[in-house]
């Protein structure tokens, strides 16, 4: 492939429609969740290393920057899940109409927020 090949119009000059923003967010959350997986592995290693390491790890995880990353991970997980379900609906050949797409996009945003809120409530109240 030539380095100086013609390129398509620069995407930066367009304001992406809602569906486009949702699409790129799916990708961004996917990459971030992949990086978050490394954090999951370190938590698992912390458990394997014994009680004292585990307690130190928990003290660290209680710090607000860690909590921020934790809840960002959970929101990203739910967003990626909701939009992933939309992709699975596409895979069975349904839901390509413009109005349906906008409805899906809004449902995904609301759905991911509600799911994150519900989980926060259940965890916070010690129900789970």
């Amino acid at each position: 492939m030539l380095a100086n090949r013609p390129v398509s119009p620069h995407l930066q000059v367009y304001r992406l429609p809602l569906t486009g923003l949702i699409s790129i967010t799916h990708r961004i959350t996917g990459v971030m969740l992949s990086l978050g997986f490394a954090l999951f592995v370190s938590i698992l290693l912390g458990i394997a290393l014994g009680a004292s390491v585990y307690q130190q790890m928990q003290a660290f995880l209680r710090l607000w920057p860690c909590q921020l990353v934790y809840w960002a991970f959970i929101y990203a997980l739910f967003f990626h899940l909701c939009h992933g379900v939309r992709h699975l609906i596409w895979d069975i050949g349904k839901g390509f109409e413009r109005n349906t797409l906008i409805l899906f996009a809004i449902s995904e945003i609301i759905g991911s927020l509600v799911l994150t809120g519900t989980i926060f409530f259940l965890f916070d109240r010690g129900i789970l």
Partner: protein
Amino acid sequence: MIDKTADRKSASHATRHFRHQRITAVLLIPLSVWILLFLHKAMTAPYADMLSWLVSPVNAGAIALWIIAVTYHAALGLQVVIEDYVSVIPLRRGAIYASHMFFLILAVAALAAIVFILYTQGNYGFGL
């Protein structure tokens, strides 16, 4: 004729990638419940509670399955992202290889940690 065969081969790679991406996606929807419970335990539960949750066969199995499905899903997804944004072919190949290795090493480390915890803490007869 030879070219057509080559095309078909690469097309079958693409459909396999597509199919595996979807299979892991569907699998990951119910498994998300376990990863949320795991993270919540790791954040809040005393060490003994965390261990007794993790060594139960259903939980350990679900987390292990989640690790395998999620690393595979992430490796497939990140490969597409790299293919879209890295246009220099040798660099692209290298980046895809590096990302595959990244997820392989993380998956092995995570599964090793699970096996280690089961071996040292679980009641499966091979610990003593």
